[in-house]
């Protein structure tokens, strides 16, 4: 039977195949190798002739059934693990904006009040497994606003004193406070969150302070590489900041941010670092402290607690909210049921699809093609 349905293609191919045979015929004669006269002949390689061996996947119901089945099962497995992992995470949230008059911080929500303190009391009926993380949360706060984000001076923050005198224009208009350059300049630093919290366990009417650990709450790279304090002048950080003004909204200059720990000052203040890392979304929380020490290293035991808030940061004006979050974390971070549920749903969907495909396959199968 003829090999080809169209003569030309067969003709070509046969010609190629018979090439050596043909030369053999002429070898006996005068015919020399004729490569010399076919200078333009294209290379007959699989690449140039577009005949590279190829895998030609062809999706069809028969092929995708096992795929869907496997993916479905794996996804369901992952989903269950995530779901259970997320279930085990304990979270305690409390809004302390004080909008309503019956909330504890209602008094303090009046912007005119300075140095206002309020406290939230709560009861744990179940052990809160440690390590417990204390977050503050803000809503409707657009740290990701483009202009807000660029309103800082990277060189200043990396300790370059040249920029202490002439901060970058990107900080505008938070560059000078009545002619004196602001360090750290820019809106990002200026708007730093300045509420502070103290946690007490109420044990028999007395307030037992829960030690809050502020070490290591910022990114390691921020603390160790990106942000640098200016070189000390005469061993003093304050002297290094000489000739600069504090951001307008700040109560204290940068070198006095943490009076309890001299090394936690300037740009190396961890609360400052946490703040300067811009949140991705307008409703966010930021790590405030961790509870890792003393009696509370294993977690917060059952009991009554009081959270004392020094209320400074105004949010009501722009419709924002403030909250405090106590949470422990697992390998998958904080509590979020979404991922687990999504995996379960998609996994189930894949199983359903594999069944659908089975029906389709039975109906339209291509008898020889899929073998």
């Amino acid at each position, binding site marked *: 039977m003829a*090999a080809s*349905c*169209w003569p*030309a*293609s067969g003709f*070509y191919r046969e010609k190629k195949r018979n090439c050596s045979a*043909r030369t053999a015929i*002429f070898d006996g*004669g*005068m015919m020399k190798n*004729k490569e*010399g*006269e*076919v200078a*333009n*002949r*294209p290379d007959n390689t699989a*690449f140039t*002739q*577009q005949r*590279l*061996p*190829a895998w*030609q*996947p*062809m*999706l*069809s*119901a028969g092929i995708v059934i096992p795929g869907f089945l496997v*993916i479905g099962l794996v996804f369901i497995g*992952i989903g269950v693990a995530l779901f259970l992992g997320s279930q085990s995470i304990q979270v305690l949230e409390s809004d302390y904006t004080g909008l309503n008059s019956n909330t504890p911080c209602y008094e303090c929500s009046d912007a005119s009040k300075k140095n206002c303190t309020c406290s939230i009391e709560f009861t744990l009926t179940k052990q809160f497994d440690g390590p417990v993380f204390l977050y503050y949360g803000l809503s409707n706060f*657009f740290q990701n*606003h*483009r202009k807000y984000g660029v309103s800082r001076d*990277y060189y200043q923050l990396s300790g370059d004193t040249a920029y202490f005198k002439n901060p970058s224009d990107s900080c505008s*208009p938070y560059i000078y406070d009545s002619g004196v350059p602001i360090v750290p300049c820019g809106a990002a630093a*200026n708007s730093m969150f300045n509420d502070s919290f103290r946690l007490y366990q109420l044990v028999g009417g007395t307030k037992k302070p829960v030690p809050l650990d502020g070490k290591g709450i910022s990114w390691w*790279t921020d603390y160790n590489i*990106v942000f640098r304090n200016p070189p000390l002048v005469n061993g003093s950080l304050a002297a290094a900041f000489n000739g600069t003004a504090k951001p307008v909204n700040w109560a204290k200059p940068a070198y006095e941010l943490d009076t309890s720990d001299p090394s936690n000052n300037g740009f190396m203040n961890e609360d400052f670092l946490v703040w300067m890392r*811009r*949140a*991705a*979304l307008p409703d*966010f*929380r930021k790590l405030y402290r961790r509870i890792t020490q003393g009696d509370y290293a294993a977690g917060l035991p059952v009991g009554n607690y009081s959270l004392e808030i020094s209320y400074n940061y105004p949010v009501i004006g*722009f*419709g924002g909210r403030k909250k405090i979050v106590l949470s422990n974390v697992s*390998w998958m971070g*904080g509590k*979020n049921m*979404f*991922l687990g549920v*999504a995996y379960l749903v*998609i996994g189930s969907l894949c199983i359903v*699809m594999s069944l659908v495909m089975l029906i*389709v396959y039975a*109906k*339209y*199968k291509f008898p020889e*093609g899929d073998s």
Partner: protein
Amino acid sequence: MKWTNPLALFRRKERESEDTVRTVVSNLLYEHLKKKEQPNRQYKGNAVKTTKYTPWSFLIVNLWEQFHRVANIYFLGIVILNFIPVMNAFHPGVAIIPLCVILALTAIKDAWEDIRRFQTDRKLNNLPCLIYSRKTKSFEEKHWKDLHVGDFVKVLSNEVIPADILLLHTSDPNGVCHIETANLDGETNLKQRKVVPGFFNPNSPFEPRHFRGAVVCEKPNSDLNHFKGYIEKDDQNKTGFGVESLLLRGSTARNTDESAGIVVYAGHETKSMLNNSGPRYKRSKLERMMNSDVILCVLLLFGLCLVGAIGHSIWLETFQSIPQYFIPDNNGQYTSSILAGFYMFFTMIILLQVLIPISLYVSIELVKMGQVFFITQDIDLYDEKQDTRIQCRSFNITEDLGQIQYVFSDKTGTLTENKMVFRRCSVRGTEFSHAENAVRLAVLSETESEEEFILFQQQHKASPLFPDDQTESRRQSTRANVSRSRVTVTKPSDRAFSSPLETDVAPDQKLQQVLRGASLAEDESGYYLDFFLALAICNTVVVSKAPAHRRKAEERPSNSKKQMTNDLPDVFSGEDMTNICTDQGVVTPNPGQTQKTQLGCLVHYESQSPDEAALVHAAKAYGFTLAERTPDQVAVRLPSGQMLSFQVLDILAFDAKRKRMSVLVRHPHSREIVMYTKGADSAIMDLLEQPLLEKQVKCNTQQQLDQYARDGLRTLCFAKRILSQKEYEDWSKKRQEAISAIDQREQLLMDTTVFLETKFTLLGATGIEDRLQENVPETIQALREAGIQVWVLTGDKPETAVNIAYSCKLLDHRDLLFTLNAHNKAMCNSTLNNHLEEVKRYGPPERSEEIGLVIDGRTLGLVMDEDLRSKFVELCKHCRSVLCCRVTPLQKSEVVKLVRDKLGVMTLSIGDGANDVNMIRAADVGVGISGQEGMQAVMASDFAISRFKHLSKLLLVHGHWCYNRLSNMIVYFFYKNLAYVNLLFCYQFFCGFSGTAMIDHWIMIFFNLFFTSAPPIMFGIMDKTLSAETLLCMPVLYKSGQHSEGYKRRTFWIAMLDAFYQSLVCFFIPYWTYQGSDIDIFTFGTPINTASFFTITLHLAIEIQSWTVVHWVIMLGSVLVYFIMTLVFSALCVSCNPPANPYWIMQQQMNDPVFYLVCILTVAVALLPRYIVHALRGTNAESLHLWARKVDRLAPPERQQWIREWKSLWHPSVSGQTGRPTPPLSSDPISLEPDSPFSDRRL
């Protein structure tokens, strides 16, 4: 003359620009003058400069050119926007990068091209040439660039001519010089050039100092075949000259030891340079469609930006008091919401600019380069005989090849070989069938392959045609013959019209007997002699003698034959003679021996048209050997061995209007002035002298001519006229006047010519076969099955054309054949109406495929009329093939334009000759066949192939591939850009429409530049939906491209919707995962970016239909590059892009299992719909295309079986079938029709 007055100078210049002529005088007379005072100084020098730039102007000129492109201006606009502080979205410096990259890449490409041009120019300008110097009174060797108009140049044999030179002297005793114009028009035959009349003095050496006249000629123009002027001597005598005295720059002098002349055009003003037009730019249909979608993208971008702007204004309005994160301007003022929204609009444009696929244009260019590479690499489109590949002359319409609906083809040289073979003749009404010759050709026609040819050689040598005593020597030489024939067959381009097929004619025995009994005295047999003399001399065939010059010609460095000459020296030199001498009987491979054979044997014929060569060879077969031709005389050796030298009085060259040519000679013995004429029957039959006696002869001859035409032969009539001395002298005077006239010269010449060509005596007629090229019927059949309408446009008469059409399967004997042949408009109209009514009974246009239409040139002229056009087009829609006969080149292009514009279809024209140039230019795709009729067609074409059969692979395979690849890639690009941009847009809803990007700007640039650029380009170059074999076997698959199924508006919108869905998934799954957490911007952006990268890449992976090593390497490479580059970037970039801070984020994320979980889930959800749709579509294989893909995956024998079965089911009506065929599973194959091309091959 002294031109000291500046005003005079000015006037002179003015005159030059207004005058229609240029005047050139010898430079030697003015050599003592200063440069600026020389009379020829305003003419350009011979140095050529084709470079666009100079080193110092490169940057400015190149940038200026680049900013003429809309895309670059768009880019520039974006960059400028970015420098406006209130609008910028990114760090301004960073925004410049993409623009710089693109500008730099283009500049590098341009610079490289220009350097190459510069190098070629320099090489050319420094070629040596001999220029006459007054100081040394001799020709001195200088460079081409030193040459000026008015200089005298000497050209030696085999030298390339440096400028356009008016020939004033040659060393040839006849005052001629031969040139080969292969470099200009590809014609390899020699052309004769004559010294300007009156300047030829063979006895004395050329002395330029004595040249006093002024050469007056045309202004520089590009017409290679026309040139006229005169030399005005001091005594006001004018001597006219034409193109026959002009040596063209770039051609090669041959055969003449020395020739010299004065330079009339130099450098850029030479005809060859003026002919050098740059590459052509066409925009393909796909690109036109794409551009309208780009506009949609622009609208979409505006829409998105508008949403952003309005959203920002509204968002600003929602705040009662100003929050800390609002940034006032420098004065502490806050911009109003409306103004902020207005600014935001432009910021959004910068942010979302990628939506306009600028990179698509660059990618398309790259992809087309790749596609062109693969097309030219195809070994199936390589012609071994000519050693030529397919040439892609237009780089940007490869995908149009996949959408052709109408093919317009020339006949001669395109469908047929244009290798003319003498088949039969009729002398004075008596037919000689040349049966022996037919037998010989039948053997040859089996195939042209060498194996068969040996067979022929063996048969041939045993043939009774050759006397016994010669058989022995023949046998000895068989081996040499084999190799000789092989050389000949493989190199016809160098040795035009000399394959044994054409040169060997086996004489008709009856005719030979008649001749043997004839002598010049007898009345009737005198006609026989006249007939053969006419065959031998009524032409412009040049006899080149010794093979020596050919050898030299072969040694041209550019000639690929050099190698062979070295390999086969002895065989080669014997070759010419064996070709010519076969009928003389003595063939020997030894050149020494050959020298001893008769002198007349050592000739080689060079002719401009293959018909003429065939006729001369035929005459030689009967012993009438054309031995020598000079401008003044032509010598023929008679069968008796006697040499007859005719004085040539004039040659009235062939032209398309007269359709005949004549030679005026003086008979050496009788001193009679005889005019031999040959031409088309229509051009001769009406001009016969008509005594009663002649009537019978004419009648018989006409009958035989009609028979020849029915057999598909090309017919020529031969006639003679005897002139009296008086008649000739009268005419000659008029002729001279006409020649020297400068106004209306053409018309005057034509008048004198027509005046003489009348009162003919008919000698006879010849039938020459123009053989079909190999596989023409199969190719036409395949094109037809592919849904392509094939039209043949030919200058031939209807009978010949119809026969060729039948033999090449353009028409079928079962077809209903309409003929349109009308003398006036009314008649034409009524015929059209009749035909239209009749075809309508056969059903809608798609179904009627058994209708053919034949129309002739005159009628075509009538139907081109405005009111008949639409009817004609309507009729043509019903016809499956249309044959236009006797059409002029202009009509050819008109037909193409009519069909293209009226029906709005994609057209392709294919042709090989200068007469097809118009048609090739008019069509959407022009294909030239590099054949024997010169290179004009190729020069005008977009693609140049060497055989008609290559068309099927070019269209069905490469066209299909290119179209599918490119359309898929374009769709993918639109998808990719929207999928990515929409991520950024989604984020705007969560950042107050402030134009923040959650992905670092560098990463965004990398994303388009490195991560996702290579895979689609590879996809566009290398993806293969179906194998070449399947596409060739099932031409029906081509229809998908014709209907633009690869890229429709619907395809575009589906891709956009999918992109939208996928980007929503890519954004919102990470969003919901990280919602409410302490995640920062770039940490949030990284999983989005990664998931999007994988979605986009895997989306392509689903679309890729065949995975080769290259695909794997590039796809996996892209993934690798993504991770490596982002990791390196995050590790190094502490401060690359302040104040953004991507430092260590990728590393951080890659330590987090949630990152992987998010990415996996996102990619799975994003791709699920597309994957399911593909799986479902693949399952029931709804389209023929998918069915073919399934079949394509089977092993070859199995595949053949399937396709055969499918064909047997569907072939009978395959061209009308567009629906889905049921795979032939259980149904019985329908019995095949007897002459189906597939039936015989099943056995």
